């Protein structure tokens, strides 16, 4: 057994606990621990990514109990990829927060570590109930992080966010209970094996539990009609927190992808492809509604929050379409959208600091101190996020559009292309308002924080890097898509003998 599988969960958990006790130590000490933890996490994620790249599915049985009875962690290409996305985001969020945002409230670094532990755990676990536990860990950390810096707007957003997610957790438990009551197992692979043979009343109840679970994941992923909490929450969160939350919607999408390929995949008998028709429609509606929201947004951060939703809709369309090509495409698009939107949230914060009281409001305001530098960066990042060539968003969208055919193409192409156009208009409206139309009053705002700007640009640089290294990245996502569609290989890895 490879004990390294535990590192992405244990390391931030231990560092988080350590940071709770050192909360009164000098801030440099706290920052050193936090920074060291995320850098080690990055190295661990890199190592696990190379290991998973060999195509072997690694199973870690906690306490060495065999698979259906004990709790297992599973590392396949998809988990390793998601760990990598999180680790990169964690590094930049921590570095950016160290420029002052971590002092706006207590325990920022400890909460960040707990959140990372929860996220990594959710990606690694092979057990339904542990997925619930890790969801709760990352959620309770996110409640506190959302409130970081306090203020009325954040409280109001957090109240909705917390209550909705508590209802979601209850529904998750009902669904987990149903799964256990019918199938007698909580191991996802074992569940897949059971569902393949189920029929009649059993199948009906399992499908009901699955539909309930999709609803819970939908709340986390935030697609129509479950996304109304997101724009307010993301728009009002402190910049590094909003950047970190760029991965939060992807956790819901990851869970949907995992369930729709493994548990309700092609080999799931009567329950195969559960809900994909509904998800497809919801994905398209999400893209349309959220791009309208982005167009109508009155602050830069809420514009970005709606762009998060656009990416959720796009990714969901790929999952619902469910072919190997579409999953290859959306995994590439997921890397791009998570990192670039997080980078844009950080950039919006740097811009806001130069606009005084107006902050990110899209109104004619004071002249920025560094209009060319920030404007140029915003221009490039906007091109990337809107999906125009030569950046990564374009490649992701082209791959997705190529992967569908027939009537699905007639539905997807206009939605994606027109939403891209509206997105460009919305972003250029925001950009021209902030950078070009000033009322010539120099604001008394803080000068540019060069280090924070440097970190933001580094994160945004992932977009051209994804283009330069497109071939190996797409080869990896293609191999990932093949692996997650191949359910028997998971059965073999867990040594569950009966064939599907």
């Amino acid at each position, binding site marked *: 057994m490879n004990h390294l599988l535990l590192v992405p969960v244990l390391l931030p958990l231990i560092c988080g606990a350590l940071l709770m006790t050192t909360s009164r130590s000098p801030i440099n000490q706290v920052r050193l621990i936090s920074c060291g933890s995320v850098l080690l996490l990055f190295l661990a994620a890199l190592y696990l990514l190379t290991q998973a790249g060999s195509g072997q599915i690694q199973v870690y049985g906690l306490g060495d109990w065999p698979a259906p009875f004990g709790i297992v962690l599973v590392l396949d290409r998809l988990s390793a990829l998601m760990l990598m996305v999180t680790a990169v985001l964690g590094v930049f969020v921590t570095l950016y927060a160290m420029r002052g945002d971590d002092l706006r409230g207590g325990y920022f670094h400890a909460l960040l570590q707990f959140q990372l532990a929860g996220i990594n755990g959710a990606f690694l676990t092979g057990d339904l*109930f542990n997925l619930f*536990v890790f969801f*709760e860990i990352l959620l*309770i950390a996110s*409640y506190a992080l959302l*409130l970081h810096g*306090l*203020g*009325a*707007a954040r*409280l*109001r957003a*957090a*109240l*909705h966010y*917390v*209550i909705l997610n*508590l*209802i979601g*957790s*209850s529904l998750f*438990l*009902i669904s*987990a*209970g*149903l799964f*256990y*009551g019918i199938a007698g197992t*909580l191991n996802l692979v074992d569940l897949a094996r059971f569902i393949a043979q189920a029929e009649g009343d059993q199948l009906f109840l399992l499908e009901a539990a699955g539909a309930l679970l999709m609803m819970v994941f939908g709340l986390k992923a935030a697609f129509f009609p479950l996304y109304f909490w997101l724009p307010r929450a993301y728009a*009002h969160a402190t910049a590094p927190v909003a950047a970190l939350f760029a991965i939060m919607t992807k956790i819901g999408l990851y869970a949907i992808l995992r369930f729709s390929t493994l548990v309700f995949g092609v080999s799931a008998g009567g329950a195969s492809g559960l809900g994909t028709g509904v998800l497809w429609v919801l994905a398209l509606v999400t893209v349309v509604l959220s791009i309208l929201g982005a167009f109508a947004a009155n*602050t830069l951060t809420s514009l970005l929050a709606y762009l998060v939703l656009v990416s959720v809709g796009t990714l969901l369309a790929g999952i619902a379409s469910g072919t190997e090509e579409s999953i290859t495409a959306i995994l590439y698009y997921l890397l791009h959208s998570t990192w670039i939107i997080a980078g844009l949230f950080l950039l919006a914060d740097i811009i806001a600091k130069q606009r005084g*009281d*107006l*902050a*990110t*409001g899209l109104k004619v305001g004071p002249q920025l101190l560094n209009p060319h530098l920030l404007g140029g960066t915003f221009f490039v990042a906007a091109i990337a996020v809107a999906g125009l060539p030569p950046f990564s968003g374009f490649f992701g969208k082209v791959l997705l559009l190529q992967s569908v055919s027939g009537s699905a193409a007639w539905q997807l192409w206009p939605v994606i292309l027109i939403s891209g156009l509206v997105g460009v208009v919305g972003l250029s409206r925001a950009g021209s308002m902030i950078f070009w139309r000033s009322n010539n009053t120099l604001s008394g705002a803080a000068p540019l924080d060069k280090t924070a700007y440097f970190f933001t640009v580094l994160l945004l640089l992932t977009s051209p890097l994804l283009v330069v290294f497109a071939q190996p990245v797409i080869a990896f996502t293609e191999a990932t898509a093949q692996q997650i569609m191949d359910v028997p290989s998971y059965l073999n890895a867990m040594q569950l003998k009966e064939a599907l």
Partner: protein
Amino acid sequence: MELLVAITIGVLTFSGIYLILRARTFSVALGLTLFSYAVNLFLFVMGRLHTGQPAVLNDASSYTDPVPQALVLTAIVIGFAMTSFVLILALRAYTELGSDHVDGVEKTKKITGLGRNKQNKKKRTGAKR
């Protein structure tokens, strides 16, 4: 006994959801608590109803499934932590926003005594933007 348990879970869920749909944070917190009671009970009986049976596997042909008991214990602990968090959050929102409405703003009628507080709030949100 199955029928009685099913009715209990149903009534608890119904009351919980009714209270969650109310507009005041305290009712919502109560509703969440009732709902989580219903969920915990549901999770517990998913191991089927048995009386007077051992909770571990032994030579006996009949036993009580221990897994749902372990699950429900975890769920209770997590639910307890979440409920206390939501209560603190609701109190904080009430003192800071001057309203216990879940949206943080009174929709139907204005409370005259809190007028000043409301103005402050407007200023504060303005500053945030």
